[in-house]
Structures are given as C-alpha cells and as structure tokens.
C-alpha cells in the first residue's frame, strides 16, 4: 500500500479535468508544495501516485482519494493546506492520512444523479424512475473490455435508489457497487433514457458523495 491517502473534492470548472490531466496536475502541485513524491524504479521513473476510483470527466465529487508515497515522512495535518495553495480552482485537499484499507476492499459508492428538466419535472417521474431502476433488470449500453458497446444489466450493481423531485430537477440518491464490477452512476441516467424515453432529461449532473467499505462505512 502507498504511504498516504489524500481526500479531496473536485468541483466547478475542475470537473472537466480528465483523469490523466488530474494526475499531472497533482504531480505539479506536489512539486510546488515542495513535496518529493517517490518515483518508481526503472528506465522511465514515474511518480508513485494513483486515484482509488477515477472519476468520469464532468462529474463532481466530495470524496476523491489519491494514494501516494513520498521520500521521507511528511506532516499529515498540514498537508491539505500546503497543497491547496498550489492547486487549481475547484480542487480542494480535505484530509491526509495513512490508508486504512487496501483498494480491493472498496465496495460501494454513494452518488447524486440530477436529472434536469427545463420545463419542470414531469408528474409521476420520481415514482416511475425509482420503480424502473429497482425493477427486474436495468439494461444499458456499456463498453465492454473489447471497447465495444454491448447491452449490460446493471441492476445487480444498484443497491438503493430514492428519487426526490424538485422544481426543475429530479435527484436520484443512489448507492451502487464500486468495483468487480462497478457501475458509473451516470449510467442510471442512461437507463432512464432507454427505459423511459418520455422522461429523457435535458441535462444530467452527477456528484459523487461517498466511497464505502464492506461494512458501509466511509472507505479510508
């Protein structure tokens, strides 16, 4: 396991930074903060850094985790502040500590999927959508390992969904399986479009709220 695990949020304009770009952004932020990240040994040494569960471009998150190791020990308590002075707008380091559990024990995630309806949330949408997502099977087109789109049933990975209708948006509070196999909460919106085409939203926003371990506690 890596020496440290950093919790950070990714919001606003920063949600458009892709996974690889975010890795580079952190590498540079560490250097700016005067932290020496340990490098892999080999012909092309690269910094030892990885995201626990990479986030899709366009999604925001309150709970991203970055694992890394440094040359020499660092003071965990002051690290978030040190990094925040060096990070771009929208990325905020929240806490740093030694990892408690290995990544393989990451189990679930909580996310809010907002379905935006510019002319108001249709009547009965909340009930219809919740019923569909918790029905027998939920089929979406998903890229398989051969990078081809194939119909997949994501129902086994959906653990709980409640729908909360507001004025012009309907928020799905979802708990899904995080890995082996995981499901991107954005696919819940895709499922709505497929199964309930008349409830197709004008826009979708996904926010990751928490990563959970097997006992349903925040993954650390």
């Amino acid at each position, binding site marked *: 396991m890596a020496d440290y695990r950093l919790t950070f949020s990714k919001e606003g304009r920063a949600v458009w930074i892709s996974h690889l770009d975010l890795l580079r*952004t952190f590498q540079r932020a560490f250097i700016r903060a005067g932290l020496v990240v340990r490098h892999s040994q080999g012909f*092309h*040494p690269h910094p030892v850094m990885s995201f626990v569960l990479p986030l899709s471009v366009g999604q925001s998150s309150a709970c991203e985790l970055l694992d890394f190791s440094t040359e020499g020990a660092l003071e965990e308590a002051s690290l978030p502040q040190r990094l925040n002075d060096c990070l771009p707008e929208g990325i905020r380091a929240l806490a740093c500590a030694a990892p408690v559990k290995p990544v393989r024990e990451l189990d679930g995630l909580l996310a809010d999927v907002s379905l935006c309806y510019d002319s108001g949330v249709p009547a009965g949408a909340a009930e219809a959508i919740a019923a569909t997502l918790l029905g027998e099977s939920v089929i979406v087109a998903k890229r398989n390992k051969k990078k081809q789109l194939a119909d997949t049933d994501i129902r086994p990975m959906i653990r709980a969904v409640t729908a909360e209708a507001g004025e012009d948006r309907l928020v799905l509070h979802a708990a899904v399986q995080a890995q082996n196999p995981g499901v991107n909460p954005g696919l819940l919106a895709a499922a709505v479009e497929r199964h309930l085409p008349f409830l197709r939203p004008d826009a979708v926003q996904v926010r990751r709220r928490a990563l959970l371990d097997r006992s349903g506690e925040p993954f650390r």
Partner: protein
Amino acid sequence: MDKKLERILPRVQKPARYVGGEYNAVVKDRARVDLRVAFCFPDTYEIGMSNLGMRILYGVMNQMEGVWCERVFAPWGDMEAEMRENHIPLYALESGDGVAGFDVVAFSLGYEMAYSNVLNMLDLAGLPLRSTDRPGLGPLVVAGGTCAYNPEPLAPFIDFFVLGEGEEVTPEYLQLYRRAKAEGWSKGRFLRAAAQIEGIYVPAFCAPIYKEDGTLAEMRAVEGSGAPETVRKRIVEDMDSAYFPVETIIPSTEIVHDRVMLELFRGCIRGCRFCQAGYVYRPVRNRSREQLADQGIRACQDSGYQEMTLSSLSTSDYPDLVGLCDDLEGYCVGHHVNLNLPSLRADNFSMALAQRLSRGRKAGLTFAPEAGTQRLRDAINKNLTEEDLLQSVRTAFSNGWSAVKLYFMLGLPTETDADVLGIADLARKVYFAWRECAANRARGVRITVSTSWFVPKPHTAFQWEAQITRAEYQRRVDLLRDAFQRDKSITYNWHDPETSYLEAVLARGDRRLADVLEAAWRRGARMDAWSEYFDFQRWVDALAECGVDGDFYAHRERSRYEVLPWCRIDTGVTPAFLRRERQRCYDSKTTPDCRTQCSGCGASRLLKGGVCNG
C-alpha cells in the same frame, strides 16, 4: 459557469480547454477594473498556451492597476458547432464573459494560416468583421505579432497593428484608451492619437494606390490623419529589466509546449537571408546568465514542471550557454528536471553540450542545413559547412543518438538541380558518419530528410524573389525522391505544397487580399493550419470570386523599385541592407555574423547607445 456552456461541454472533445480556472490564471473583480482586454490567440488552446509572447503580455497587462486581461482561443470544430447552435458567443476563459463586451480585443498573429481564424473569432464574438462597421470606440480590435510586419491582408479588419515587442507599447496604448474612454472620445480621435505612439500602425490612415499593372503606385498617408510616414517597430532595450513570466498559467490539460520556457535572448546574430525572424527581431539582446538561472529555477518551483526549454532563435549563440547550463544543472539534477536545448546550430554543437544532454533521454536530434551544397548554403548565408555538420552528427552518434532529422528548403533563390541532389549526398554522408561512429550499430539509425517549399517573406533579403511554381517544386521533389530510392535508412518527407502556396500569397499580399480572406472564410475556411480543416479549393474559389490572381503574389519577382505593401513599416533594418544582402546571395558571398563583424543593417539605431550587445 454558464448553464448553456455546461450542457455542451460533455459533448465536445477535451472540454478542459474551454473552462479556464487553471493555476495562476488571473481573476479580478469586475467592479474594480475599468479596462478589460480579451487577448485572442487565433488557434487552439493547446497551441496558444504554448506561446511565450502571450504569457508575457498577459502578465504585463494584468500587472496594471484596473486592467483585466483574459484569454480567448479558437474553439475546435465540434465546439464551434455547439456554440453556434446554442447561441453562445465567443467568451474569455477567466470570466466567461462575451468578447463583444470588452474594451480591447487583441490578436496575436503568428502565421498566415491563422488569418481565417481571426475572422471566425470576430464573427463568433458577434462583432462586425470590418473596422468601418464598428464605429464605436470599443471594442477596439488590435493585432500584433510576427505577421503584423505585413499587416495589409488584414488591414480592413483591424483598427490598429502593434509592431514589434509589446512590453512597453501595450501599457502606452491602454493608458491612452483609458483616457479616451473616460473623456468620451470618438474612435477616429482615439486612432489619430494612437498613431502618434511609436510602433502603432493605423491601416485606415494609409491608402494603397495601385497602378494599371496591379502593382502598388504608393501607400499614401491619409491627409489630416497626422500619421507618421513610416512606423518603426518597438523593442525592449534592456532584457534584464523586462518582465519575465516566472509565475505563469499552468494548464490543467496537456498543451504542445508543456514546460518552462526560458527565453535566453531576442534577435539572432546569424543573418540567414531567407529568415524573417532573423531580420525583424534584430538587434540581439541577451538576458544575463545570473538572471536566467534565477528565473529558470523559480519558474520550475512555481510551475511544478519537470522540463525546461532554453529558447531563442539560435540557442547555441548564447554567449555563455555552457555556464548557464552549469548554473541550472544542480537544481535540475536534484529535482528530476530535464533540460531541453532546441535550435542548436550544427556548427558549434559542442561535446560538452552533447554529454550534458545525453544524461536525459535521447530524443532525436534535428539539424537544419537548409540547403544541400556549400554554394547554396553560402548564397543563403547559412554559415554552416559540411564538415561542421558531419562533426556534429559524429559527436551525436558516438554519444548514443541514433535518430537524426535534417531540414531543407527547395526553391531557394539560385537553386539548381545540383543543389537538390546535394541534399541526398549530404544525407548519405550523415549515414556514413553513423556507420563510422555509432555507439551501438545494432540499434540501427533513422535519418529523416524533410523539405519544405521556400516561401519568400517580407523584410528579408528575398522579399523581392518569386516563389518557384508548384510544377517546378514537384519536379524537384521527384528528383530528390528518386535519388533516395536505394537508401533504406533514409526517410524522405516533403511539405504539402498547398499551404506553402497560400502562405506565399498572404505573406506578401496587399490589401486586396482582405476580400479573398473574407470570401474564403465565408466558404468555411478556418483552422487552416490543421489538415483536418484545410481545404485548398475554398481558397482557389475565393481568389477566383474576388478576381485576384494568387500567382501575382506568390510567383512574381518584384523589381527593386516596386512599392511593397509593407513599405510603411520600419523594422530597423534598412532596405539598402536587404538589397545588398540579396546581391551577395547572387554572388554566393557570405556575410559574417553580427559578433564577428557588424554589417551595418541599421537595427542598432533602435538602441539608445547605438551599439548592439550581440
């Protein structure tokens, strides 16, 4: 963030380049600024953010109290389509505000193929293309950069051009604009006052008068405008007191030159006769070694970059390059920072530098002999001998390099078939040098020869020359390709002739080309520097529609008495010097570099002391 924008971003490629918010991006309070500048780069974010000039001027302007300079780039095709469909006007990255509401819209012109993007960006901003259709004081559309040295093809679209280096003149015109805005001046009054600032060319105050044969009779100063006869470019005299962007924007997405760029000096001592940069950036002005070392290290610390480029027109001509590398080395080695030295001349590629470079990864080496024979290299004043080049590649090969790129031009003045075939001979000699010196023969060698089609540029010794015809260029390419047929280790690439032709048309074009530009843009021309978008036929049709003969600009030799469209622009280098250099080309005579002997080009008049520090 704008809601409409948020909706389209998931559908476009690389959305991070359209949102701003990067580290060190300058965000000011709208209520506390009275002058807003939209700094537009007429190409993609990845290209524009790699431009050091833009970073310098961004810093210079944002240092000014009450001024907020923001960045604007040309959207890629998918984004442009979404913006047009969803009625999102061109906006600045920092604030997200529409460009049309800014006080000054400033373009940086790096190359001719970006001209269509200038028009497209004005249109996306919702601004009328032509200066005369924008009667108000603001937004004022200005342009600077290398292409401004022949501003004529863009003249009707731009309110004024800024010639030369912008560090000093930019604050001067912004202060004038601020006063004009506060006192409610008309645009005409402001332009008349701006024309009095050295380095500012107002195209409306200069009218081209043509002869019957289509050449210029004169560029006539408009009566009552008070504009000077000629406009002299601006330079920064003392590089050590000039602003350098140590703390600069670090993009959150990958750009083309994603590294620290340390500018060693401006100008070039060499005087290659084809090279516009070599003439228009004179005189040579160095930054001091101590300051460079300090700025380079601080820039690495602030950016977090692990790569630094020592940039200039000819890096090995920096007086104490080895010393500077020594100064930077301690920091670079200790912090995993790779040092790049592009633009090394083949003649003084020293052993010490080769060894220093070889500590990092051995990327390919590129040399630009430009011509295949000594006679032609002398004629273009590329003071490089075959032995220098071969010695350099031997050094490189014995230090473990195994890939070399060689750049040449076809169609240089006085070129014969013997010169063309000389390119193949030279490449073979490089191959034999590898056989002789290779550190590891088993790895093999890759020698890549690339040729481009020579484009004569304004303000050079070859500004009067004809570009050879396309058929002739193709014949020379074929000749060379046949010559390489049996060389398995040598790859030959040649440049696409269509862009080079248009470059030749636009580079020395006059104001009549503005209509062609607009017609080509209306036919869909944009992003012409990108093969994905470039369509030659659009330009052919646009030329035909406007009744303009492109060959008149590209393939016609000008007489030495002809009035040139850029005759009102003074780079410091005198036309007499350029004529002398052209004659020396025909005599195959070289001119010594500025450090060996001053050749009296005239650029030293730009300095207060009148002496270059080359």
